[in-house]
Structures are given as structure tokens and as C-alpha cells.
């Protein structure tokens, strides 16, 4: 059973939003591509815990996050490089660097698990922040489902354009062709393509809470209760506050 429901909320939450969030909650609970369901739910829990971490608060306030050393306040279920990754991505994403990512890799957090972690953090943030925006408590995290990861690594990866390998839309194989269907294959869609199921789950949220790729470019048609201009103003202001260059 999924625990995502807005039946108690006095707002017209679109069915596609509820369906996408239920899908993602189930996805978090199950064994993924490189991580178990237990690890994935622990990542979601740590994403929430990061908001109460004193070290993260100090780093956020510092001129450079790398000037403040210490130990994260964490839940104890994950190895240190995963905790560091989750906390920094959650609390200070605009100041992440290639050297920081390489440092995590040197501590044993490989690209595959890192990308799956990024997807899990992002999905948790998208659902939790929606609840925060509506003024309700975030949903209980799902119970982990037993099982083994699939360890599926797609073909067609290259490693020269980002901090992690990406599948180029021009060379994508049949198993991953759906990742870029009806889209321009922008880098944001490629970003987690090393772990294709993370793209599928996360972009279900994007399509429902924001717009799908076709709707985004169809500025002549309004698909939501707010206009394209209002949507993009909110999106761009959030990104500016996060100091997101992309």
C-alpha cells in the first residue's frame, strides 16, 4: 500500500500528481538498480534528517562549505560518503564541485550508486517540498521491500560531459530510447541516465508537477491552472535562490 494520499487536503490535487508520487514512493521502497530497498529508504530518511544537521547549517552559512569540518548529524544507517553526499545535495547544492564528487568516489561511492542516490534524494525532495508548500506534514516513508538490485548498466555511456557518465540521445539504444522520447534530450534528462529507472521515476514527477517536455515548449497552450509565464517565474526564482547555473 502506498501512503501518498491527499484525501485529507482541502485542495484539488490533480490525479496525475498523486499517481506520480505514489509511483515514486513505491519505487523508493523497492530494490533499485544498485541499491537495496533498505538503502533507498534510508537515503530518503537521511534526506529529511539533513535539514536538522548542525554541520550543514554551519557550512551553509560559511563563505566556503569546505572551510568547516566536523561530523554530520545522521541516522547511522549509511556509510559516510553517502551521508556527505545526501546532506550536501539537500542543504547546499549550488556549491557542489567536481573535486567534491571525486572525493566521494575516492571514498568508495561509485558513479552508479551515486546517481541512484541523487535520484532518490531528488524524488524525496520533490514530494516533501510539495507537502511543505501545501502546509501539510510529509508522508511517512514507505517500508523497504526485500529484494536484490538489478545491477543493470546501460550501453552507450560516455564520461566526458558531466561528473558522471551519460547516455547521449544520439546513440541511445532501444532499452533506453524511452528516456528521451518526445524531448530534446537536454542534459537535465541525461543527468541520471546511468541509472535509467531514476530518470523514469523522477521525470514522472516532473511531468505531473511541472510539465512534460512537449507541454513545456508548447507555450501557446495552457495546461495548468497557472500560465506558462507564471510557471516559469516560480521555477526560475526557485533556481536562482538555489544558485543553480543550469
Amino acid at each position, binding site marked *: 500500500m502506498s501512503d501518498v494520499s491527499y484525501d485529507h487536503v482541502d485542495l484539488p490535487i490533480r490525479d496525475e*500528481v498523486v499517481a506520480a508520487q505514489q509511483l515514486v514512493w513505491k519505487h523508493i521502497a523497492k530494490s533499485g538498480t544498485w541499491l537495496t530497498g533498505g538503502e533507498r529508504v534510508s537515503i530518503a530518511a537521511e534526506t529529511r534528517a539533513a535539514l536538522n544537521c548542525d554541520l550543514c547549517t554551519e557550512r551553509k552559512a560559511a563563505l566556503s562549505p569546505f572551510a568547516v569540518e566536523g561530523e554530520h548529524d545522521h541516522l547511522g544507517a549509511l556509510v559516510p560518503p553517502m551521508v556527505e553526499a545526501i546532506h550536501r545535495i539537500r542543504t547546499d547544492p549550488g556549491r557542489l564541485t567536481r573535486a567534491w564528487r571525486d572525493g566521494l568516489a575516492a571514498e568508495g561511492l561509485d558513479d552508479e550508486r551515486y546517481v541512484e542516490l541523487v535520484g532518490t534524494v531528488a524524488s524525496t525532495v520533490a514530494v516533501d517540498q510539495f507537502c511543505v508548500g501545501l502546509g501539510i506534514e510529509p508522508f511517512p516513508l514507505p517500508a523497504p521491500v526485500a529484494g536484490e538490485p538489478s545491477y543493470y548498466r546501460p550501453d552507450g555511456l560516455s564520461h566526458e560531459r558531466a561528473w558522471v557518465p551519460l547516455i547521449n540521445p544520439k546513440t541511445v539504444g532501444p532499452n533506453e530510447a524511452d528516456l528521451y522520447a518526445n524531448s530534446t534530450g537536454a542534459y*537535465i534528462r541525461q543527468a541520471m541516465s546511468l541509472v535509467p529507472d531514476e530518470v523514469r521515476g523522477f521525470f514522472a514527477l516532473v511531468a505531473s508537477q511541472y510539465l512534460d517536455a512537449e507541454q513545456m515548449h508548447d507555450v*501557446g497552450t495552457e495546461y495548468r491552472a497557472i500560465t506558462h509565464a507564471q510557471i516559469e517565474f516560480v521555477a526560475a526564482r526557485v533556481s536562482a535562490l538555489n544558485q543553480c547555473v543550469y
Partner: protein
Amino acid sequence: MLRRSADHDRRDYDLGALTAAGGSGGVAQGNLLRDFAEAVVALDRPAIAAAGVRIRAALDDAAFADVAGVAAVFEALDRVADATGIPLETAKAEDTAGFRAEIGIDRFAAAGEKGRVA
């Protein structure tokens, strides 16, 4: 994308409002949307509630739900982009070079590293 909307709407939205301390950018109810976006990023629950009441009154409940959805999912999208170090698409960089410099995006902390063109 806001510039594309401006072209379509034949409006001259003020993109400087995106990085400035205030302003609606010329977007309908922009000040309310801005207050809400800022409160969500700051996790300021009283400010979120106050902005939400104003949006529901000025627009409607469905609009408020959509604003909340957009703000939340961009909180997540920004993190995917920043955590994976993806570059800017060449066309996007060329198309936006002028206003990125003008409104200060090129001065963001990670601009030198992540603002590069693919």
C-alpha cells in the same frame, strides 16, 4: 523558458526580477508567486502559509496547488543538475549569454565550473 513565454505573450517580462531582491517581473501575480517560492526554498512555514492564503485568494485553489508543485519539483531539478555537473547546452548558453551576465547568474558560486558550455 520565461523568455519564450514573453515572446508568445508579447510581453517584456523583467528577467532581472529573478535574481533581484524584489519585483514581479511583470508576470501576473508575480509578487505573490515570488513570496511563495522564496518561502518554500527557505522552509519558512509561516511565510509559506501566508503566501499560500494570498495566492488562493488572488488566483484559486487549483492554481495554488500547481504553484506548490512547480516550486517543489524545481527544488529537486536544481539538485539533480548541481549534483551531476551537467553542462549547459551550447544553444542554450548562446541564447542566454546576455541576460545571464546581466542578471548575475554568471556570478553564482559554481558558475565557473558548471556554467561551461558542452
